[in-house]
């Protein structure tokens, strides 16, 4: 059973269609990238999954159950702009927000202390939120998001404004959640994070799905028949190569339609070129993003 199933969902605000016949699903144990330009309908889709707003038509199910009050305890949400009660103590804030997710006060306190210890935040448990640094309060917000062990975790720009140490800490926590079998929806503009973490992606533009599937499969779909080569020796004219671009530490070779990477490798070895790295070039997701959105907007 899928953790989330969105079927033909449509949502309009006054005279604007925000989400237009959108369908996708997220499986347990996967990190699912939800990407798209600003105003594409990502936030509206997330809000509908959380039952903050209702779709006009279509259906959203969470663990097989129609999205509603009953499904709220099964998901955790980290909003893009973090917000906590500034004047409240760290522990009180976590316990209150965990209790709204159906946890008893006792188990919330126990779990909060455990998670604060894991993240090195236990010494700050009695501090007020506004006494914490931005990075620290983001870690607290993440604890609030996952303390009740939700089956679905929705993270909206989780790494924005985090320093490298905290980014790594958060990444490891996200990967740990995936390993526990949770479904994670990652909405971000940081394409490098999507490439690093996501198993599958959905790209939305103008409320419609423009790309949907496994990340590797999408990237190979957009590959431009090129290879990345790090080598020693002389690289003169190579048959089947239409263009050579020298990058820092490697070269990008574009092949003609009749040449396969396998044939190129054989040809290079036959010419005595010492191959240190040979990689089929796939375009960065960022490039695919710009290309797809650009085509869709034309």
């Amino acid at each position, binding site marked *: 059973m899928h953790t989330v199933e969105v079927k033909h969902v449509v949502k*309009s*605000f*006054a005279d604007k269609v925000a989400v237009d016949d959108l369908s996708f699903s997220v499986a347990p144990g996967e990190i699912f990238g939800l990407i798209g330009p600003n105003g594409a309908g990502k936030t509206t889709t997330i*809000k509908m999954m*959380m*039952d*903050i*707003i209702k779709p006009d038509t279509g259906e959203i199910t969470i663990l097989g159950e129609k999205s509603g*009050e009953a499904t*709220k*305890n099964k*998901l*955790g*949400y980290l*909003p*893009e*702009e*973090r*917000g*906590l*009660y*500034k004047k*409240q103590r760290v522990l009180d804030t976590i316990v*209150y*927000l965990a*209790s*709204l*997710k159906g946890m*008893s006060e006792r188990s919330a306190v126990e779990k909060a202390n455990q998670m604060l210890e894991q993240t090195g935040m236990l010494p700050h448990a009695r501090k007020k939120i506004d006494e914490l640094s931005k990075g620290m309060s983001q870690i607290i917000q993440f604890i*609030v998001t996952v303390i009740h062990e939700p089956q679905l975790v929705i993270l909206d720009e989780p790494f924005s404004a985090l320093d490298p140490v905290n980014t790594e800490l958060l990444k490891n926590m996200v990967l740990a959640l995936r390993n526990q079998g949770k479904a994670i929806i990652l909405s971000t503009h940081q394409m490098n994070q999507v490439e690093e973490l996501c198993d599958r992606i959905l790209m939305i533009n103008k409320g419609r799905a423009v790309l949907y599937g496994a990340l590797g499969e999408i990237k190979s779909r957009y590959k431009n028949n090129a290879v990345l080569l790090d080598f020693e020796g002389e690289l003169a004219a190579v048959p089947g190569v239409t263009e050579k671009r020298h990058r820092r530490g490697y070269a990008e070779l574009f092949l003609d339609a009749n040449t396969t990477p396998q044939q190129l490798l054989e040809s290079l070895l036959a010419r005595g070129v010492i191959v240190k790295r040979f990689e089929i070039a796939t375009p960065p997701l960022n490039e695919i993003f710009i290309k797809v959105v650009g085509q869709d907007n034309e």
Partner: protein
Amino acid sequence: MNKTFLIFKHEFLNMMRRTGFIIMTLIVPLVFVLIIGIYQIVSGIAKPSEEITKIGYIDNLGGFMQYTSQDKINLVRFDNTGEANISLTAKDIKEYIVIEPSYLSTGVISLYTLEKQLIPPPEEVTAIKNFLTSNLLSDKVPPNTIYLVEAPLNVVTIRLTETGAIAPEQGGYGNLIIPTLFSLLLVLSITFSSSYLLQGLGDEKENRLIEVLLSSVSTRQLIIGKVLGIGAAGLVQVLVWVVSAPFLMNFASSSIGGFLSTLQIPPNFLILCIVYFILGYLLFAVISTGIGAISPSAREGQQLATIFTLGAVSPLWVSSLIIMFPNNPAFIFMTIFPITAPVTLMVRLGSTDVAAWQILLSIIVLVITIAGGLLLTIKIVRTFLLMYGKRPGLGTIIRSFRSG
């Protein structure tokens, strides 16, 4: 645990811990004590002088010999204006009057003084009037009649029930005190709680905490929990004020002649005041939440909420008219119109017997408005709370309700 209750508990405790709330709860009784203190000081300063004032008179008509002692004013006879002027300049007398022979036909009395006066002081005019009246009537009517002519009316109202028995509530100024006090407390509570509610909602909206909350609870649970939580804190505040009132009245009784401490509060009076306090409070809490939902910031929300708060306060501006004409159709309308109902009814209760149908209709209208307002607010919150930085126009609100 029920999520509405969790929000209720959180909002209630949060409110009770707010410094502003604690200060407000304590400051009202303190202001009361301060007023009593100021009253004591002022009444001490303004205490009427024990000194006897002397007013001279020249009796050119004749026959004005008696009744020269009028309370704290003594009338001193002079034979001519020369003597009177000497005494006046020597400040032996404050002023003098001349009773001319023509007085009986003209009624004109000339008053000579060194002071620049707008009008002669009322107590001196009264003393002169009584001196003249008493002398004119002496030997013609019995002394008791003279007193009656001087003070012919001392009205004692006795209110009867429909069966002709003496009513337990006799009305009067005492009855005005409690409803007026309640209406003032209501206005104070509405203003401050509405401000807390808007501030809280505005903060949650501005820092996006509202999204985290709504990912855990429904809009209905959030709004009801908030309104009731802050409402309960408001009631605790009023309870503190009401409980401290007997102590304050006891303290006041030693200074304000026991007037306040002799006030009797009929139970039905108190019950109605409390019912209207709660209903009024809930109504404005619901209105404030709705405004909070459509306002981009807490500050703008408070400006918008002021319009409604002014509506609630408006009956106090015309309270003297309501007291004088409590059954005027305009005030009956204000009793039924939900925004003005709580304060209008409280003021009217003190000055008249408000018809049962009006109270009943007013309560029904208030309850329906609160329930309808709550549903509307939930819808507004669902639609507009998640819009940041811009306030929807009236047209947008109506359009979205039609389409929704």
